Structure formats: structure tokens, C-alpha cells
């Protein structure tokens, strides 16, 4: 497939990331660039013919019913999976060969992390520095960055707590801090609020909004439509193929939701799920 961005609905937001951490990347290069990507674990494709670009500083939410390929699409974007057809580029490089790992911060459903492991919040956040230090030792600068990240997410007071003692919301803030400590330009979150209590969810999204305002690109895979519609700039509605891609306010009226989810669409279902 040639260079083809079948994405006329999207007017990429003008807001440019000015984090300025990486002078070696062209300024206007899309963070994520998928061109006609198809992928299947078996012969049946889970994601089919998806083209989409994410520009620096965007706050993009990917929604869709269970099994719609949201998480798969996200893994294709960060190069954890290789597309069967089409191309996936991350910061202008083929995603699978992308080796500038500290630019991407990944936050999974907290269930993924080793639960019973004795490890403190600070140790987890320090992992964000590992791509920078390689086999070396952490410098005092690295430690300062970790402290800053902890402060940003409001977890400084919990720095020496064992992570197993934390609530779901605190845990997710810890993982965000890890991404911040790595000075990531792109934050990828895969259903980050699963298993997090309702109050913490609000605070969590406020944190994401703050980070977005600071220019970090945010890619959010979500099943909670209410949260998405209130916060994200742009929505991609996925069910194997892209059903909708555009500004959030148009999404609600577009009817894409009903088509993607089938008949039982519940717009702004809010806190349930």
C-alpha cells in the first residue's frame, strides 16, 4: 500500500507539543502513523484496513465494544505487534524497529503488573529511568526526575509504600509517574480505569487533562464512553474497522456508536461497566 491517509474527517488540532525534549525529530512529524493496517491472531482479522495519524499533543481516545480490537490496535501502534498488512510508524520509524523506548510511556490495566511482588512506589517509578541509564547507575539527576514525577501525580507521600498496599487509583498514578519519569512524549493507556474506584477515576482523568495541556500526546483506550466524551479531543470508534474518527462533539451525534456497538448502544452510560 502506498502512502494513503484516508482520514478527511480529522482536522488535526493545531496545538503543538512544546516539550522540546527531542531535537532529533522533525517537529511536525506525526507521533503515530498507521496506513491501512490489518492484523489477525488467526486468519480472521481483528483489525482491518485501519488508517490513522496522531499528531503531537493530541488527546485521542479509542473506543469500541469488547473484542473490537482496541487493545490490538494500540499494541500495533507501539510496535508490540507487527501488522500483517499495511505499515505502522511511531515517531517516523517503523513501529516494530522503534528503539527510542523512553519516548513512550505505557500504562496497562493494573492487573497486568506482578501483584504480589515486594516493590515500592519509588522503585516502580524509577523504572522509567532505566531506558535512559542502560547498564549504568542512576545519577542524582535521575533521582530528581523521579521525585518530580512522583510530585506531579501527587504520590510523593506514598513513595516508600509497597505497591501492593495501594488502591487501584494510586497504583495507576504510580504507572503514570513512571511514564513521566521516562520523559515520554507519548502516553499510551490501555483501559487504565478498570478496577479503579469511581472517585479516583475523576482525579485520574484530571491528571491526564493536566498532562495533555502540557503538550504530552495521549492515547487512551477506553470502554467507559462517558469519561471519553467529556475529556478527549478526538475519538476513534473501532469495531474491527474505523467507524468514526473525528472531534469528540461530533462523535455523539454521528450515530457511529450505534453502528459500532450494535443495537444496545448506551451513549454516556457513565459509571457503569
Amino acid at each position: 500500500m502506498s502512502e494513503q491517509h484516508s482520514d478527511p474527517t480529522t482536522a488535526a488540532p493545531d496545538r503543538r507539543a512544546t516539550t522540546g525534549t527531542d531535537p532529533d525529530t522533525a517537529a511536525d512529524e506525526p507521533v503515530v502513523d498507521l496506513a491501512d493496517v490489518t492484523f489477525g491472531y488467526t486468519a480472521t482479522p481483528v483489525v482491518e484496513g485501519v488508517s490513522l495519524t496522531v499528531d503531537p499533543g493530541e488527546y485521542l481516545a479509542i473506543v469500541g465494544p469488547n473484542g473490537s480490537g482496541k487493545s490490538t490496535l494500540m499494541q500495533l501502534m507501539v510496535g508490540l505487534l507487527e501488522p500483517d498488512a499495511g505499515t505502522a510508524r511511531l515517531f517516523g520509524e517503523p513501529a516494530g524497529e522503534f528503539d527510542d523506548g523512553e519516548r513512550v510511556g505505557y500504562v496497562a490495566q493494573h492487573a497486568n503488573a506482578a501483584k504480589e511482588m515486594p516493590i515500592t512506589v519509588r522503585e516502580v517509578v524509577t523504572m522509567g529511568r532505566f531506558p535512559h541509564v542502560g547498564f549504568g547507575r542512576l545519577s542524582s539527576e535521575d533521582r530528581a526526575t523521579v521525585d518530580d514525577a512522583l510530585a506531579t501525580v501527587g504520590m510523593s507521600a506514598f513513595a516508600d509504600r509497597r505497591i501492593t498496599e495501594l488502591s487501584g487509583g494510586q497504583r495507576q498514578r504510580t504507572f503514570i509517574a513512571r511514564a513521566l519519569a521516562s520523559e515520554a512524549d507519548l502516553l499510551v493507556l490501555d483501559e487504565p480505569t478498570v478496577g479503579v474506584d469511581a472517585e479516583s477515576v475523576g482525579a485520574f482523568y484530571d491528571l491526564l487533562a493536566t498532562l495533555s495541556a502540557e503538550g504530552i500526546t495521549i492515547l487512551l483506550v477506553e470502554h467507559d464512553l462517558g469519561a471519553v466524551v467529556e475529556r478527549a479531543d478526538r475519538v476513534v470508534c473501532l469495531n474491527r474497522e474505523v467507524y468514526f474518527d473525528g472531534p469528540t462533539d461530533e462523535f455523539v451525534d454521528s450515530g457511529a456508536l450505534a453502528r459500532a456497538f450494535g443495537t444496545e448502544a448506551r451513549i454516556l452510560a457513565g459509571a457503569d461497566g
Partner: protein
Amino acid sequence: MSAGVGPALVASGLAAVDPSVVLPLQVGPGAIGDLVFGALLWLLEQWYWLMDWVYYVTGLEMLNPDYRYMHRAVLVGLCVGVMAPLIGTFLVHRQLALIGDALAHTAFAGVAVGLFLNAVIDLGVSPYLTAVVVAMVAALFIELISEVTDAYNDVSMAIVLSTGFALGTTLISLNAGGLAVGVDQFLFGNLSTVSPRSAAILLVLFAVIVGTVAVTRNQLLYVTFDETAAAVSGIPVNWYNRVMVMLTAMVVVGAMQIMGVILVAAMLVVPVAGATQVSRSFSESLVVSVVLAELAVLLGIAVAYYGGVTAGGVIVLVAVGIYVGAVVLGKVQSARGEQEPPGVESIGAGDTDGAPGTEGD
């Protein structure tokens, strides 16, 4: 080791007393191998000297200079007490506690291969060397299976385990026609059969393992804690998994000498499980697991010596006793921690060392 140059008289005198240490030079082919082996034997001499000194100070009968094998057993035990929990910590927190068992059984096949080759073509290699090779090949095999199938599969692990043991027993029985081979020392471990040569092999394994973990500690931790995030951040996860299982194979063979095939996996798991109960941070859990393992090894060797029982079994029993103590301590800790959060810090390290000690006595 004893940094002291020591009374040269004593050291050289010992070398003369113990001619067996000069004999087995087949470890590595060529001059470099001989050189390394010579250096390790020199280290061993220093160790004997240190142990003699401890004997004269403490009067511990098991360290009597006439029992050089006990000195070697203690050395091997101390090394195992460091490297087994070191690697075990990374395994346990990835739910890979049983991989040690699988590799131990394939290492037994490796021992059988070594004995077989020695009997048939008179190769003269140490069975422990062939065990290292076979166990590492098996480790890679398990890892590759898991990469292809996307998960560590307990079924494939069980298959590798039984294949290893089946191969071992078959080769041994084939061999037994030629000469009666004692496999008990490999199955159950034996303090008195730790030869200078196998102690030297262990020192090499120890250096490789501790060195590798020291260099790649960050990456191993990241992969252990959150494999996906580690992959996203650019760490070649598969390579570190391969390194990890190969190191496991080395630990298993190293510990096999005193623990035996059947019990060796316990050293990878039990001290780590105990440390997990009482530690808050990862660094702390590493240190605590090593401390617990050393306690178990030293107490176990002592009880085995004075009680005339098999060391491997006693070491594991002591380790399990310590584990139970740690569980109780952990419960007390968290109960107290809930009442007064800021005070927990001070309970941590101090009590950890004390409580298992009383438990073991």
C-alpha cells in the same frame, strides 16, 4: 575471600598435604583453562586457610582442618546461598517457581550424559560440566517454546522435566552394565563429595551469575515486574528471558552438589517466598532472601554434619521453618502497620534477621 596473603607457610604446607587438588586439570582445554583453574585452586587454598583460622578461634569440630571436604561444602553452600535466591527472586515474581525443578531434572540427564561419555569413550569430564551444558540447552528450549506459544506453559515444563529424568535414568541404567555408578550423590547431594574440581566449577558459575545480575539488574527487574511496559520501553524482553533461564540452569547445577537434583529448586523458591512476606521494597527483598538462604544453608550443613543426615533435606527443612517464621512475622508487621503507618519502617530490616534465627534453633 580472605584478602590476607596469610602465612605463606601454612598455605604451601596445605598444598603439600592435599595432593588431590593438583590432579584434576581436565576442566578446560589448553593453557588458559589450566591458568584459570590454577587461580581458582589458589583461591580455594585461601579459603582453607580462612576456615582453619575460624576453626582455631571457634573450635567448631566440623571445620577441622582434616576435613577439607567440609571446608569446600561450606564454600559451595555460601555461594549457593547467594546465587539461588538472587535468581529465584526474579523467577518467583514471574510465577516461574517450577522452572528450577524442570531444569534440575534435565541437569540430571546431563550428569548421566557425562557419566556415560566417561564410561564409553573415557572423556574424563566432570559430570557437572555436562550437566551445565545440557541444562542450559534445555533452558533455552523451554524459553523458545514459551516464546512460540506466547506463555510459559506448565504442560511443556512438565514434559521437559520428565523427559530429562527419563533420559537420565535410561542412560544410567545403560551405563550400569559397565560400572556401578553411584547416582545418589547427584540425586540427593552429598557434602563429602564436593571435590576441588567441582568447587572450582561452582566458583566460575558464581562469578558469571552474580556478574550478570549485577550488570543487568535494572533490565531484569523491569521485565519481571511489567513485561509489556518493558518491551514498549525498548528492552529486548526475549533476550533477557533467555539470559534468565540460562542463569537458572547454572544455579541449579551449582546447587546440585550439596542439594541434589530433587531438592535444588527449593533454594530458588523458599527463601524468596520468605523474604516476600517481610520486605517492602525489591532491594530489601533481595537482601533478605540472601540472608535467609545463608541461614538455612549454614544451619542445615551444621545439623547434617553433627546429626549425620543428608544435608539437602535438612537445608530445605530449615528453609521452610524460616519461611513459616517469616509468614508469621509478616502478619504481625502488617497488623501493626495498619495501626501506625509511620512506624513500620523500623520493624523491617532489624527483626527480619533476628526472628528466623530463633526459629531455626
